[in-house]
């Protein structure tokens, strides 16, 4: 299984602390292994930041589900775009959606 496939599989599992760290690590690896590192670099830092929000505190299921409902789809669309060799502009737009979803959820 490639790193990108592993990442997609992890994304399907949802957002919870251990998975966030695993996905951040995969994004770091993927960012170092591509000529277009920006999306993975940004995703890595988003996952680490969510993990910091959720680290060592009781995480109500409702809160986790709310964040997942906002973030999973844009993340999946971004990965699909990367896999489909989206143009820089398309990738940038998809990345914007991910960042917006993150900002709406946490800032």
């Amino acid at each position, binding site marked *: 299984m490639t790193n990108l496939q592993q990442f997609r599989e992890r994304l399907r599992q949802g957002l*919870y602390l*251990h998975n966030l*760290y695993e996905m951040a690590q995969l994004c770091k690896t993927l960012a170092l292994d591509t000529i277009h590192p920006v999306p993975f670099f940004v995703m890595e830092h988003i996952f680490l930041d969510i993990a910091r929000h959720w680290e*060592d505190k*009781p995480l*109500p299921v409702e809160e986790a589900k709310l964040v997942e409902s906002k973030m999973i789809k844009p993340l999946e669309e971004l990965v699909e775009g990367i896999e489909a060799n989206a143009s820089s502009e398309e990738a940038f737009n998809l990345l914007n959606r991910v960042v917006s979803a993150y900002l709406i959820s946490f800032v």
Partner: protein
Amino acid sequence: MVTYSTLELGLNTESAKRILEIAYKVGAFLRGEFTLSSGRKSDHYFDGKRITLSPEGGYWVGKAVFDELAEIDVDAIGGLAIGADPIVSAVALVSHLEGKPIPSFIVRDIPKEHGTKRKIEGHLKEGSRVAIVDDVITTGGSVLRAIEAVEAVNCKVVKVIVLVDRHEGGSDRLKKEGYDFTNILHLWPSGEVTIDESSAVPGEIKAGALPP
């Protein structure tokens, strides 16, 4: 105010009883629907830091772990940040008071983004015999990450001690892998909290087992 003479109670059972009292007092057991760090869902949550970061709780946890290590030759004690941090500090302090100092260390959950990329901070020499601690064990992932980090520097894990075993497979996993595992409290899937494994009745929720 309740005062305790210095380290007068040698039995971990006594320490465990005291820790359980403190756990209820500081509201360490919470009800609700929670997503655990492993991704599992639970209708109760144990917040170990409410105990280990309280002055009294920190002392009793440090003492209980130190007592557990009394007969074991360990060079250092450590665990994964953040859950283990107050525990290793408490044990180091108690060990100093007892005249049997045990150096401590902390394992970072992820490598530093910049700088030395050191995963282990504190006092850990290569080849040491170490005890690993944590505030809670569920599937065992956190404890195993700490174990992996110390074994990577050729240390031998001779003891694993956690404050609360949630009995979600983690302790069994460690035992199967050959680690000497001990816990102070049991939090059963039913929500019941006990200090004695044999007193638990799986599936039964005792009234008042958790604070409202």
